[in-house]
């Protein structure tokens, strides 16, 4: 199977690999997938608590090249988006951008799940403290 150029690029030059401290204020962490399924993604967002904008995002992925590329792309897209905007990222956007073949669609689904999980974690941690931000 040949990989699309964009998958190869993200694999060779993954954007935003790394971790934030889980308990840092404004950080939301999503850990999805399972080792026995062959892919696990950890995706983290760092939200500016005053503006509600995602200022930084990081990932680590155990999985195939397409899984790595999907999560790398997701972190790129998350940066600069508000929490609400981020929730609108769909797996099909990732499929189209990376030209993923049908057998790799689950990688994009996992990336979307990771985004949602990170957002949910952020919201849960900041439900009391940062609730006013979302309503403005």
């Amino acid at each position, binding site marked *: 199977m040949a990989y699309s150029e964009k998958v190869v690029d993200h694999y060779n030059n993954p954007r935003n690999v790394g971790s934030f401290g889980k308990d840092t204020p404004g950080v939301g962490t999503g850990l999805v997938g399972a080792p026995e*399924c062959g892919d696990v993604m950890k995706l983290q967002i760092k939200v500016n608590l005053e503006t509600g904008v995602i200022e930084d995002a990081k990932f680590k992925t155990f999985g195939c090249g397409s899984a790595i590329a999907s999560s790398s792309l997701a972190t790129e897209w998350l940066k600069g988006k508000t929490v609400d905007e981020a929730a609108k990222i769909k797996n099909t956007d990732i499929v189209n951008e990376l030209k993923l073949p049908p057998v790799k669609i689950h990688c994009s689904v996992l990336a979307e799940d990771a985004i949602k999980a990170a957002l949910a974690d952020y919201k849960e941690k900041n439900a009391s403290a940062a609730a006013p931000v979302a309503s403005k």
Partner: protein
Amino acid sequence: MALKFPIFMDAQSTTPCDPRVVEAMLPYFTEKFGHPASRNHPFGWEAEAAVDAARGKLARLIGARDPKELVFTSGGTEAINLALKGVAEMYREKGNHIVTTVIEQRAGIDVCKRLERQGYEVTYVPVQPDGLIDVEEIRKAVTDKTILISVMFANNEIGTIQDIAAIGKLAKEKGIIFHTDATQAVGKTPIDVEAMGIDLLSCTAHLIYGPKGVGALYVRRKGPRVRLAPLFDGGGHERGMRSGTLPVPLCVGFGRAAEIAQESMAAENARIAKLRDRLQDVILSSVDEAFLNGRPDRRLAGNLNISFAYVEGESVLMGLNKETALSSGSACTSSTLEPSYVIAALGASAELAHSSIRFSLHRFNTDEEVEYVGQRTIEVIKRLREMSPLYELAKEGIDLKTIKWKAE
């Protein structure tokens, strides 16, 4: 010597034709084009003589008494199909039970699955963690309805060589026909169908530097005489067991490849095993939590199979594939999207099946290639571990088994 890319270390998937094999084949495409079943003119006689000579070389390689015991097929898959389905149909009145193992290659497993759908019963004997099949497990599985025992000679993923002689002895004792899928073993490890009590043996040319498109099934003629129902009906070629015009150039190539394998096996195995051991040392001495799959002392000389914890196999191959051809037991590299059932059957976690990489070396690999592939593998594993959430968790001292994973 300068390295030439890409480097091929996937010799258990296929091998390049040896130039000597190609040379032997060439005349049979053009001037010596006869049909071996044309009994009444020199073109036919020439072709028949060539095919019989090839049969003789194959017979010598596996210790068959009579070259006529070899039936040419289109490859290993067809040979396995013919052996299993041929016995099942022919001996249906005697019984309906087959004993095989969980680590057979796909052809073996899938034929058995089909036979089960047709009303046969199949016992899949488990494998021990070291890759060996316990002969006693086979003994326990045998019933008075068992008509066939089918156990692979050497495994395609982990290279483990089974105790075929002991299984052959058991089969003789019980009066059951014994088939071995020797596609990975022929030409790589000494085989003697007489001493080992083998009744049926499947093999293929393209794994021993011969051409793709030809294989053979050894069918014992004496003690016992094994009979098979054919897969195809037609001209009754190959003693009625495999109708169809023989691909003479391919048969000649197979014969030449067998001859070279026999002449060079001892020296070549020693050389390849040394390269393989070096590759293993280079990698295992630099990478922690890398696990060798299969029993080290009963392995094909060219086989090295390692599971690298915390990294997924396809991503490893992707990091190397511009320069090195390897294979993996990861789901993403398989047509079924399931991880290696062989590695999983060893009792390893499914994660380690996804993380397995097979290096399979061959006649033309060099010291320089081994050093290069070893170093590059180490680099890629390190890079991917830096990117792996599992590695990070493990380094934090968290047992991955205690995490509740949310599978999609």
